[in-house]
């Protein structure tokens, strides 16, 4: 019995120890729970939240760019894109391998994937393929259950509706090189043209969507969404049909065509040839393509209409003539005998017409583009005065058109020469300047502005964006002088012996214009002196540019136009006929006064 009691006591003592150890274990478990659920709640709460929520950035749809008649010239098209959950990115290689049987990955695509992988942004998705075709999309849908962590999204990407026609003026979109806004690494912004200048309005505001996904990456539901705000639609002064017509006309030549609305300053056409396809830029352009464009013989990336610099040639004579009437009180009836050349100092200056024009007054000199008449005027012109006078026609000054990369050209004077050529001004150079050769350089847009300002007598400024019509300031020029110049421009086109008579309009409307020949090389001056070479006898690249500027209708100016056809010789031969065809088209279809 004693033994039994003892055993029972032992048993009770041991059971007590057992009970104590159980309490200890319970204590440990509760402490850990307290640690996890109370002390570390916020840490684990966040982890659980980031486990399940996936953020997808929603890119805004870019605003549409419209022409003056509300036709879209840059819109957006649907692009199906394939995205992978960022946390599954180690499977990218293997996934692409598996998908290769149904989806074509080009080298360019693969390079883009590598770039996207490096991007650090808030999005939990990485785009691995853009531009999925309908076939690829269908095949993928069939296999999609094998890739729960892949997501097809429908994006809207920039599309230019008219191939190459608007590439220079509209520009294109692309990714920012240095992206301060990491969240929107995939956002396309305007890189040039209208796209760049009006990017703020076109770009819109991004949104995002929070999705709930399970551990395999399958999206279960949408938690919350902030929709992106699409960019604003932009209305421009461009006219689709006129621009297309101009591009059509410039197809075979390198050059530019600019058409301004003389009433509003609206740019109806801003064409440059050769062009490039800006749609290729919209999806990111390959290095190969880029280099090809950069090294192209004729530089298709250059917007010739605002950044191509040409001697204005004889079109500049209009300014010289105005200057002579306004500032030199020239007797407009005074005649000068053109013998085909003129001696000035120790140099002989030639007229383009070897045998000379005979007796010409100012109107005749403009009409027939007689050089000798202007050489004669130049003898008493101070270059600084002429330079200053020219500036009110935008020579040597940027017009501040609302797209980037415009050049201002050169309107030389004494201080310009000292600064840039380290030489004093020679009076002989004034003779070259008055006929638009020598140092003076201008863009097709500047020449058009000159024409529009002469046609209206107002200081017109160009704008691509359609804005409220504004009254342009009157120029400080007499009506008498302006009318005289207009009349002489009229006779250039409509009088039998005008240089552009062949290009007169066949409709009821009359145009007034001026031809020009823009010399390409300095030496051609000397060649001119020593007896002229015919244009077709020299290298293409050394041939003169063909220039023509005009406005129409004569009695109520609407369109001011300038055509430059590179290396095509005199203005009457190529530029004037192109201008005639474009103007006839424009007058027929778009002569709507404000």
């Amino acid at each position, binding site marked *: 019995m004693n033994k039994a009691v003892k*055993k029972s006591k032992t048993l009770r003592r041991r059971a007590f120890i*057992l009970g104590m150890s*159980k309490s200890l274990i319970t204590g440990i*478990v509760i402490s*850990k*729970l307290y640690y*996890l*659920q109370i002390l570390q709640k916020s840490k684990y709460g966040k982890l659980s939240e980031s486990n399940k929520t996936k953020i997808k950035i929603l890119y805004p749809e870019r605003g549409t760019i419209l022409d003056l008649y509300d036709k879209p010239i840059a819109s957006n098209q649907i692009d199906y894109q394939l995205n992978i959950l960022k946390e599954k990115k180690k499977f990218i290689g293997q996934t692409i391998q598996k998908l290769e049987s149904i989806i074509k990955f080009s080298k360019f695509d693969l390079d883009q994937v590598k770039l996207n992988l490096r991007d650090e942004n808030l999005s939990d998705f990485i785009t691995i393929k853009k531009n999925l075709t309908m076939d690829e999309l269908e095949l993928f849908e069939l296999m999609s259950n094998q890739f729960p962590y892949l997501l097809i999204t429908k994006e809207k990407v920039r599309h230019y509706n008219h191939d190459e026609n608007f590439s220079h003026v509209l520009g294109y979109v692309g990714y920012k090189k240095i992206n301060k806004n990491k969240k929107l690494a995939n956002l396309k912004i305007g890189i040039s043209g209208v796209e760049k200048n009006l990017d703020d309005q076109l770009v819109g505001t991004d949104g995002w969507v929070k999705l709930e*996904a399970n551990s395999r990456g399958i999206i279960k539901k949408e938690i919350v969404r902030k929709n992106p705000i699409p960019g604003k639609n932009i209305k421009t002064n461009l006219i689709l049909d006129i621009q297309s017509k101009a591009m059509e006309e410039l197809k075979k030549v390198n050059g530019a065509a600019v058409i301004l609305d003389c009433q509003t300053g609206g740019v109806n056409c801003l064409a440059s040839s050769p062009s490039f396809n800006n749609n290729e830029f919209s999806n990111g352009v390959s290095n190969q393509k880029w280099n090809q464009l950069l090294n192209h013989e004729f530089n298709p990336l250059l917007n010739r209409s605002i950044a191509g610099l040409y001697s204005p040639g004889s079109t500049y004579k209009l300014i010289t003539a105005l200057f002579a009437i306004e500032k030199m009180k020239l007797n407009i009836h005074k005649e000068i005998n053109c013998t085909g050349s003129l001696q000035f100092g120790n140099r002989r200056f030639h007229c383009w017409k070897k045998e000379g024009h005979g007796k010409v007054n100012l109107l005749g000199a403009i009409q027939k583009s007689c050089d000798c008449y202007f050489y004669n005027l130049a003898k008493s012109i101070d270059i600084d005065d002429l330079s200053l006078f020219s500036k009110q026609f935008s020579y040597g000054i940027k017009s501040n058109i609302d797209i980037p990369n415009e050049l201002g050209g050169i309107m030389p004077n004494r201080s310009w020469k000292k600064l840039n050529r380290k030489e004093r001004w020679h009076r002989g150079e004034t003779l070259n300047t008055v006929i638009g050769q020598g140092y003076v350089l201008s863009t097709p847009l500047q020449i058009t502005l000159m024409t529009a300002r002469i046609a209206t007598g107002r200081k017109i400024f160009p704008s691509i964006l359609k804005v409220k019509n504004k009254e342009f300031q009157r120029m400080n020029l007499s009506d008498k002088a302006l009318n005289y110049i207009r009349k002489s421009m009229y006779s250039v086109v409509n009088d039998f012996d005008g240089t552009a008579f062949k290009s007169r309009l066949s409709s009821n409307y009359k145009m007034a214009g001026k031809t020009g020949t823009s010399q390409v090389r300095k030496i051609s001056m000397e060649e001119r002196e020593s007896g002229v070479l015919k244009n077709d006898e020299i290298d293409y690249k050394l041939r003169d540019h063909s220039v023509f500027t005009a406005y129409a209708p004569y009695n109520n100016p609407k369109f001011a136009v300038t055509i430059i056809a590179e290396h095509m010789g005199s203005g009457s031969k190529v530029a004037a006929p192109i201008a005639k065809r474009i103007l006839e088209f424009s007058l027929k279809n778009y002569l709507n006064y404000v």
Partner: protein
Amino acid sequence: MSEILIQFKKLNWLLVFLISFLSFVGLVMIYSATYGDDDRVFISHFSKICLGLLIMIAVSLTDLNFIKKHAYLFYLIGIILLILATFYGIVGKGSRRWLNLGGFVFQPSELIKILVIITLAKFFDEKKLQSAGDYIFLILPIFLILSPFFLILVQPDLGTAMVVLLLGLIIFFISGISWKFFGVLSLFFIFSAPYIWGSLKEYQQKRILTLFDPESDPLGSGYHIIQSQIAVGSGGIFGKGWTKGSQSHLDFLPEKHTDFIFSMLGEEFGFLGTISVIGLICLITYLTYSIASKSFSDNFNKMVGYGIISNYFFVSMINMSMVIGILPVVGLPLPLVSYGGSSMISYFIGFGIILSIDRSMRN
């Protein structure tokens, strides 16, 4: 018949209520775990609870002396079933531990735990160990423990095997075997530890190593334990709400209706939920403890009582410890809460025995 009714009325209904309530908690959690999925798991679990409660009542009405008398026979049957399961059983989750007996699939290793307790209790009740020389008798009980231990180990089911070993040691301990024995055992264990480590399968080693540094392999062996801790931790004080646990319902939490059900409880009901369930487990443990210790007349009853409650308590604690990252993941369910028939029914049988002990004291 009226005798049975009288005995029925004598049952400890508080304990029955607490056990049923804990099963109900399990049912609620399994409803959530299978929410939106097919409901067969829920229905199956519900019917198993009903079956288990019936078995528990039936066991509670049997005479414990009958069990004591035939303890070795039961043990032998248990071992035979275990052998069949280990070598001819159904393979599932990478181990061979289930036996199909006429359409009823069960796991003999769950039953053997209770049989080991009963057999050892009978042995130590009959054999009185006083002097050092008596240790020779320990060969039999050690054999009784090690044979099921190894049979379960080769299935392989490390968790259950360790529990069998633990229960054997607990019976040894409360039966009054001297501290020296445990001292020697500890030394033996320390020296053999490297060999035991070497004999473990690679994935088992990994699980143990993961415990110390789960972040070392967050998507591999550490994944489950990290996700489980996130689930529990993110529950906070009040939890995310029933069926609202994102970790559980978006499949970040593995095995949410079986081994990791406690994590889901932690996620959906928070600290209040986990602490309440622990409270319930402790209350059940305390009640059975007091039943066992009150049974002063009979050492067999006492040892069986302590053994069974230790089985219940330690498995519960091991399960909770493993899902919150205190112990390595060894694959033990949370008794009476996790989905899984054999395990649950064997605990109901255990509690039936406790109820029987309690009833016998009132007689």
